[in-house]
Each structure stands twice: as structure tokens, then as C-alpha cells.
């Protein structure tokens, strides 16, 4: 949690635009900036469509070709936006790696687990097939897959969802990357398996910076040191995990917390946030949350608030909740 000592990733003014049917540029992600230190777990939370996955993909410059990405992304001081295709390929999986949400579709169904690992290993390291095989087994063992010697020969569909997600994690950890981006790695899993994976990630990712994307505030609270809340392509609040979750300042964050049922307290009526989030094509001019916000005023509807650091968290709101 002691930040800023060893920054591995620095994102500044990231934007992702799409072209709407008429050809005009439509911003999907706007002005996203954050940094990540070695050993830190940074959570990105937000509702569906808020731009979490796109942010993650842009870190590896993996956004779909139809989208246009700009801004600055520096990994260990190197500007990713200026890398050539070759350099990018060398960076991906090596310095920055990624774990995707759906372990069912994320692994090639016609390739054995071993061959995927071997391929990824030999891509960045000169090693013989036999050596790579050894390392693959070791990598599987390291993510807690029982009898890894057997599992390397197995096809993804022969593994349970939890094991598949472990394979994905093994793939991501192969080359000791500086940054690991995990896009909802536990969403598709059962609660008991989710707990296993969270444990695994916490224990294995100590030397790297981890970006952990989730829409579940509970999960974020469990694993993250710091949390970024996204809404409609913007960062609306950022802060230390516990503080942010127990004393949210942005009405949206607070709304999310009030809308979530929880069993560790006495039942209270849930307070839903009215309406639904805007699409990139129907974003309001001012604060994107204004139409759903009980505290919204004229200024909210007209002017977009900037992220302002506060004593508890950094928040982009004209009328933040006081603690």
C-alpha cells in the first residue's frame, strides 16, 4: 500500500474513441489517468459498459481495430503508445500480461494446456521444447493445479472452470510480468472457487502490480489496496479501498453500496439508483451521473466535474458527500 515508490505503470489521459454510424468520433473512455506501483493491487469497479474492459485492453493496445486509442501509457518508464508491432508483441505476456473473464472461451479449445504454455514460454525465452515443458509443469504447479504433469496433456474443456482460470493465471505469470491486468477473473466462477482464485492471486502477485477489474464491490474490498470507480467512461472516484468503501464521497459510489444487499448486517430496504447508465452515444453533457443523481444541480447538468483530490479520496463531483 505504500505507494509511488516503485511505479510500474503510469496511465495519463487515456482516451478511447469509436466512430458512430455517421463517422463522427464518439468518446467511450475519457481522460483516464492512474498509476500502479509494484506489489499494489488496484481495483477498477463500475457497472457494465462503464469502460473497465476497454481500459484494461488499451493497456496492452489490444482494443479492437475499430476503436481509436490515445493518451500516454508508460510501463516501467517505456511509452507503450510508441511501440512498434514487434515491440508490442515482445511486451505482451512478458512485461504486461492479462487474465480474462471467461475461462470457458478464453483458452483455445483445440490446443492442449501444455501446448499453450509452451508456445507462450518459447515466444519470449529461448528454450528447448523439453525445457519449456518442464517450465509449463512448474507453472501449473505454482498456481495450485493438482497433478500438473497430467494436466499439461489435457484440453481446456476437460478442466473445471476454476482450474481453467488457474491456467489463465499461469499463462499470465509465466514471464514474471511487471503488470498483470485481470479483467473480472472471478465473475464467472462460483463463490467457493472465487475465494480460491482470490487467495491465489493475492499470494502469487506480490512482485508485480495487479489491476483487478470487477463489478462486485465486495470482491474489490477483499483484494484491492486502491480502488478506481468508473462510470460512463470516466473515473468518478479513486481512493484507498477500505476508506472508499466505508466512506464513499461520490454519490454513485455511495449509491452502489446502498443498492447492494449484504448478509453481514441487519436487513435494510435497498436503495436503488434510478434509471440506467448512459451509452457512449447518449452521454449527457455535464456530469454523466447527473440524470440519476439525487444531489444533482444545475451545474452538474452543464459542466463536467474534474477529479479533485480530497483527504479521503479523489472524486469528480460538484457535490461530494462529506464524510
Amino acid at each position, binding site marked *: 500500500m505504500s505507494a509511488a515508490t516503485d511505479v510500474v505503470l503510469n496511465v495519463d489521459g487515456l482516451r478511447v474513441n469509436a466512430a458512430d454510424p455517421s463517422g463522427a468520433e464518439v468518446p467511450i473512455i475519457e481522460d483516464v489517468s492512474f498509476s500502479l506501483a509494484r506489489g499494489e493491487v488496484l481495483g477498477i469497479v463500475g457497472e*457494465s459498459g462503464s469502460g473497465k*474492459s476497454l481500459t484494461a485492453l488499451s493497456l496492452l493496445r489490444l482494443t*479492437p481495430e*475499430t476503436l481509436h486509442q490515445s493518451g500516454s501509457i508508460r510501463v516501467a518508464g517505456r511509452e507503450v503508445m510508441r511501440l512498434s508491432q514487434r515491440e508490442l508483441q515482445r511486451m505482451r505476456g512478458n512485461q504486461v500480461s492479462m487474465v480474462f473473464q471467461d475461462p470457458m472461451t478464453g483458452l483455445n479449445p483445440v490446443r492442449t494446456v501444455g501446448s499453450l504454455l509452451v508456445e507462450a514460454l518459447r515466444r519470449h525465452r529461448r528454450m528447448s521444447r523439453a525445457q519449456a515443458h518442464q517450465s509449463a509443469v512448474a507453472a501449473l504447479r505454482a498456481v495450485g493445479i493438482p497433478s500438473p504433469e497430467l494436466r499439461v496433456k489435457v484440453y481446456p474443456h476437460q478442466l473445471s472452470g476454476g482450474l481453467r482460470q488457474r491456467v489463465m493465471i499461469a499463462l499470465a505469470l509465466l514471464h514474471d510480468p511487471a503488470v498483470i491486468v485481470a479483467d473480472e477473473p472471478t465473475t464467472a466462477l462460483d463463490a467457493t472457487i472465487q475465494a480460491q482464485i482470490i487467495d491465489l492471486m493475492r499470494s502469487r502477485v506480490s512482485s508485480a502490480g495487479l489491476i483487478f477489474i470487477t463489478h462486485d464491490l465486495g470482491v474489490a474490498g477483499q483484494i484491492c489496496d486502491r480502488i478506481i470507480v468508473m462510470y460512463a467512461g470516466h473515473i468518478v472516484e479513486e481512493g484507498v479501498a477500505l476508506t472508499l468503501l466505508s466512506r464513499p464521497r461520490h454519490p454513485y459510489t455511495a449509491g452502489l453500496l446502498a443498492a447492494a444487499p449484504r448478509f453481514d448486517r441487519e436487513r435494510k430496504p435497498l436503495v436503488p439508483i434510478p*434509471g440506467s*447508465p*448512459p*451509452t457512449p452515444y*447518449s452521454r449527457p453533457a455535464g456530469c454523466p451521473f447527473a440524470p440519476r443523481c439525487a444531489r444533482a444541480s444545475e451545474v452538474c447538468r452543464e459542466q463536467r466535474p474534474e477529479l479533485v483530490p480530497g483527504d479521503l479520496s479523489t472524486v469528480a463531483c460538484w457535490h461530494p458527500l462529506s464524510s
Partner: protein
Amino acid sequence: MTETPVVPPRGLFRRRPSGRSRPLALFLGIGLGVVVIGGALLLMTFGHLDPGRTAPVDRLKGLGTTGHVLGTDQLGRDMLARGVAGLRWSVAVGVVSTCLVSGIGTVVGLWAASARGLVRVLLTRLIDMSLSFPSLVLAVTIMAIVGRGFWALSLTLGLVSWPIFARVVYAEAIGLMKREYILAARLLGVSGLRTVVTHVLPGIRNTLLVMWAFMFADLLIAESGLSFLGLGVPLGTPSLGGMLAESREYLAQAPHMVLVPGLTIVVIVVTANLIGDALSSRSHNVTAVVNR
């Protein structure tokens, strides 16, 4: 409660990069079709064309001959007239047989998909088995036996080709029947037939159209093949395949005799395929379903 009309597309990569070639394909396909069919219709009504008029002295005249823009054939008949008549014949056979194929295929496919128990087993087995019928071989045999003619040809082609259609309809319908909204309808007490008519049929409509276009293209080629073998058209009736067969003797002497029917077939089949492509890109990946 306010209603937000547009909903974000779920998932990042779900959207296929919609290549601009798709609307282009549709445009091209429909354009070609309109030009060819429209042209043929115009010529048929205003052209004073007589595809049967023989003139032995004028035989094998080349392209651009006065009075015969597209030349004449081995009996001095006008190639333009024969091309138009052949097109009409081939398209008509294609349409009738495709209608038959799609009719039988849809009924059997839907029936198999909505039936349960033994009926479904029997129907799917029937489809599977019929798929192993060597259709062209059967068509050749039937045509040789029942004789040439429009209805013989159309019915034969229809009767030997329906299993493919039924299979695709069945597969699509089964896929659709697994959709939760079909389950929902059933649980609401909607009857089976009603579900098929109100949910399944509209659901596979696009597939049917796509299949229809592809089937039409295939059957057109099959028709031309049978006519080429001399098993399709009656003597003297112009058909594209028959004209191609006749042209074989004159490949060197009168290449326009290959060119006219050959190009016409290509254009029609390409048209149908383009339209099919364009339609299939609108529904999900039917091209892969139309594996034949």
C-alpha cells in the same frame, strides 16, 4: 421510470468488424439481379424474340451480326432469344425446385424439431438417412426414367435436395428451441404449434432466406448440369445447361455459344450467392451451416 431506448452492446469483441463489403454485396447482388431479370423481362415482352426460329443458312453467326446481336447457334437461331428463354427456363426450374425444397425442408425440419419422442427420432433419422442419398445420381436416374420436361426436372431436383434444407432448418430450429423465450412461451401455456408459428418460424426466417438463395444457386447449377447431360430439357427448348452442352461442338468455331449461356449462369448464380451472403451476414454465421 424513464426508458432508455438504446442499450450498450454487451462485451467487447461480440461485434464482428462489419466489413463494408456486406452492404456492397447486397447492393451488387440485387443490382445484378434487377439488371439481368429486368432485362430479360423487357426483352421477353418487347423484344419480338423467337428462340425457336431456325434458319439453317444463318447458322453459327458470331457476335454482333446484324439482326443477331449475340449471334446464332447451329440451327441459325438467335442467341439473344435463346439466352433469354434459357434464362427463363433455368430460373423457373430453380424457383420451383427451390420452393419445393424449402417447403418440404421447412415442414420436415420444423416438425422434427418440435416433435418429441419417437416421432422426432424417426424424423431425424429420416433426414440423416436421406442425406446419404446420392442426390445427383438419383436425379440422373429419375430424369432418365420419367423423361425430360419442366415439371419432371423441377420436381426431381426438389425431391432429391430437400434433406439438406431440412437439416439446416432442424439445426436452426433446435438451436432456437433451446432459447429461453421459447421455454418461457411454453411455460406460459402457449401450445406447441403456436410456438412454432409465432416464435420459431420468424426466428429462422433469415436462415430460410439465406438458404433459399444458396439453394437456388446450387439447384440452378444442378439444373444446368442435368441439361448438359441431356437429361433436363425437352429437345429444342432452350436452357442454359442445354445450350452449353450444344456449344461443346463449337468451342473453337463459335465461342459465343459458350459465352452467352455460360456468362448468364455465372451472373445468376453470383447474384443469388451475393444476396445469400448479404443476408447471412445479417443473421449469424449461416454460411458455416450451409456446409455442403
